[in-house]
Structure formats: structure tokens, C-alpha cells
């Protein structure tokens, strides 16, 4: 018995001394705040912050000089926690989501040629500015879908990207990858959007797209505060969009949509889970 205790204790003692020595000799300093920051980050490593993964972001935060709200997937919650860890005031981050400002799928928008080749919007865009006549519309080859780390984007059967309001975390990966700048960041609260991205004149748009904005000004006349028209393209003014939905029925080309209600005519199929009204 005694031998057992002694020998085990002896081994333990030797090990302890060796470890203690090594802990001193090979000590590496790690800022505890960095580990804490890494813990509160979502760990999706999506890169939306612009740093290589969450660990990179945590390191950058510690180094200072960047804002705390660079992590869209984490949202306000994470910002608050990070602020607590780093001991600074949190700047409020409002939830933003990405919206595809186009409804011109293969049935509604005309093409100028048949594209053969890589299933990638950027690659197609390099060939005579993309197969669709419309210079601003969704190319429809799904680059955003492949870029989305959260599975929030679907392509409709007719080749149009649609982003789920609920799944989108606002990481902006799709915005970065879209060659036509047709995906925009919008406040989550704003559900009404003008779904067109072509600045062409109305007469021209009518030739190639059944559902593009022709810049007719009717929406602005109906609710002057909520809309602005620039270069023949209407846009929702997101700070003053409370009554924007009232113009929907007036739009002659049906290019204004309210994502908080289901599509009555089913003209655009939304991914499951997106067509239910959000808490308004």
C-alpha cells in the first residue's frame, strides 16, 4: 500500500516539477480578452467582417481601430457582448438583409443570346455583358446562391435569385459576388421594395422586360415621401417607407412588392418560409 502511494506520488511529483518548469520556460502570452471575444462570435467563419474567420476578427478587434459591428451574423447581441469584453460603448447595429432588386426571370425578361459555359454570373457577365438584354437585372446563374454560407438564397425554376428574409444574416457575401449590383442591403423592417435595377428609359425597358420599373412616377405621386425617382428608376426611401405599400396596387408594371405578404398571383415563387408575413 505504502509502496503504491509513494511510487505514484513520486511519479506525480516528477511530472509536476517538469510541467512547472516548462510552464515558465515556454510560456506564451495570450490576451484573455481575445479568447473571450472568440467565444461570443458566431463561429461561422463566413468572412463577412473582412478578416480570415472569427479568430481573425477577434484578433483585429483586440488590435483596435475597427468597429465592433463588423459581424452581421452575430447581430446586436454579439456587438453588446463584444463591447462588454473590450470595455467600450457599443454602436447600435440595425439588422440589414439582402434583397434581389429584380423580378425579371427567364419568362419575363428577354435575352440577347444563348449563353453556353460556366454556371457563374461573373463569368457570363464577361461575355457581351451577360445574356439578358437588361443591363441591371439578375443574371440568374446562381453565383449568390453558391456564395451564401447560410443557405438563404434560392433560384426559382425560371432562374431568378430570391433571398429568404428570415435566413439572411446580412453577411453581404452575395452583394460582393453579384456582378450586377442587383442585390442590395436594406433594413429588415422595410418589406416594400421596388424590384428593378435598370436605369433604362421606360420605352426601352418595355421592349425587354415585362416587369421592370419604367420610371412613370405614379408611386411617387401616390406616396411622395416614400419614393424617389432617379434616372428613370424608382426607389423606396427606407427611412420614410411607412406607407410605401399603398403604392403597390398603383404600379402599372407590378414591380413594387411587399415581402411581408404572400404573392397573390404566385408570379414569383418564394422559398419556403419567406412568404409568411413577418411580425408587423
Amino acid at each position, binding site marked *: 500500500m505504502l509502496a503504491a502511494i509513494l511510487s505514484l506520488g513520486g511519479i506525480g511529483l516528477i*511530472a509536476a516539477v*517538469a*510541467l512547472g518548469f516548462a510552464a515558465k520556460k515556454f510560456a506564451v502570452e495570450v490576451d484573455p480578452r481575445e479568447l473571450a471575444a472568440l467565444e461570443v462570435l458566431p463561429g461561422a467563419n463566413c468572412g463577412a467582417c473582412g478578416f480570415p474567420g472569427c479568430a481573425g476578427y477577434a484578433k483585429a478587434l483586440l488590435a483596435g481601430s475597427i468597429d465592433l459591428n463588423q459581424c452581421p451574423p452575430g447581430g446586436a447581441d454579439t456587438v453588446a457582448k463584444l463591447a462588454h469584453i473590450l470595455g467600450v460603448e457599443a454602436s447600435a447595429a440595425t439588422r440589414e438583409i439582402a434583397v434581389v432588386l429584380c423580378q425579371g426571370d427567364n419568362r419575363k425578361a428577354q435575352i440577347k443570346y444563348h449563353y453556353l459555359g460556366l454556371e457563374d454570373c461573373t463569368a457570363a457577365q464577361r461575355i457581351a455583358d451577360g445574356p439578358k438584354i437588361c443591363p441591371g437585372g439578375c443574371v440568374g446563374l446562381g453565383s449568390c446562391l453558391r456564395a451564401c454560407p447560410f443557405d438563404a438564397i434560392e433560384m426559382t425554376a425560371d432562374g431568378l435569385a430570391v433571398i429568404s428574409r428570415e435566413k439572411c444574416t446580412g453577411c453581404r457575401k452575395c452583394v460582393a459576388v453579384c456582378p450586377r449590383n442587383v442585390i442590395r442591403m436594406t433594413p429588415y423592417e422595410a418589406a416594400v421594395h421596388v424590384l428593378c435595377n435598370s436605369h433604362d428609359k421606360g420605352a426601352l425597358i418595355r421592349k425587354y422586360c415585362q416587369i421592370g420599373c419604367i420610371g412613370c412616377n405614379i408611386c411617387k405621386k401616390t406616396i411622395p415621401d416614400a419614393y424617389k425617382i432617379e434616372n428613370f428608376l424608382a426607389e423606396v426611401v427606407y427611412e420614410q417607407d411607412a406607407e410605401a405599400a399603398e403604392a403597390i396596387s398603383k404600379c402599372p408594371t407590378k414591380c413594387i412588392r411587399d415581402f411581408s405578404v404572400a404573392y397573390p398571383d404566385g408570379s414569383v415563387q418564394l422559398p419556403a418560409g419567406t412568404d409568411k408575413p413577418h411580425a408587423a
Partner: protein
Amino acid sequence: MADLLLILVSAIFVNNFVLARFLGICPFLGVSKKVETALGMGMAVTFVMTVATVVTWFVQYFVLIPFGIEYLQTIAFILVIASLVQLVEMVVQKVSPILYQSLGIFLPLITTNCAVLGLAVLSIQKDYTFLEGVVFAIGAALGFTLALVLFAGLRERLELCAVPQSFRGTAIALVTAGLLSLAFMGFAGLVKG
């Protein structure tokens, strides 16, 4: 000499620790995403295994047996191995931060790794001499590294494959590990014992 060679070949191929004895599956699955990392892990394991076998051999024959406390083998070995790995971890963190980062949490995992403990215990069970024990340890570690690197290569390739959503990650890794182990069955009977 021939005996030593047989022990070596047997430990690398025929009784490969991962693919035939199914020891050390955790690091096998965890640290096999990149060939470089797998190699680093293999080195770490080789080092730990060899040193662990040496130390446990001494502990067994100079402490446990003389004092008649062989029944404490498991706990004594774990103690020794655990402190050893801690030591390795600290050294690696200091000497090569990059290797430390890529091995990540798996270094501490070797601490209580069944492969290392299993090796130490097997070596004693087989009544290996000191030299045989060391060769056995090196063979086992090389076998582990071989399996790990082969597997990492396969997984790197799988990254570029259209693996169905439901099988991505660990699922397909386990299927692949199974098939790899199946292929290693071909070595059966190569060396008796």
C-alpha cells in the same frame, strides 16, 4: 534483427493502429482535413508515442514490478502520458505557433489518447524488450501517420467532390475510413502475430 523488422512491418501495415485496431480514431477524424496538418499531427504522435513507450517501459519494470503494484498500471501510465503531452504542447506552442494553431485542440487530445495508452499497455503485454518496445512504438506511430496522411489526402480530394449534403463532413469521412480499413485488410496474414 528480422524480428524487429517483423514487429515494425506488422505495426505499420498488418495491425495498423487506426485501421486494424481502431485506436486513435478521434485525432484520425479530427486532424485529417489537410495533408500538412496531418503530417504535423503524425510527427507529434510519433514523438509522444515513442517517448511514452520508453517512459512507461521504465515505469513498468523499475517502479511497478519491483514494488509489486502492477495493478496500478493503467493509472500510472495515464499520469505519465498526460504530463508528457502537456509538456509537448507547451513546447510546440512556444517553438512553432503555426503548428500549434493547426493542431489546435487535438494536442491535448493525445493526452488521454487511447492509441498512446494502448500502445504502452500492448508493449508490456507482449513482453517486448526495451528495444522491441521502441521499434513497436515507432512502427505504430508510423502506421498512424501513414493512415492519417492517406486519409487527409482523400479528404482533401473530397473537398472538391459533390458529396451529397447529408453525407458531408464526418459522415463521408467515416465511410472513407471504413473503406480504407477494408483495403488494409489485404495485408492480413502478411506477418503472423
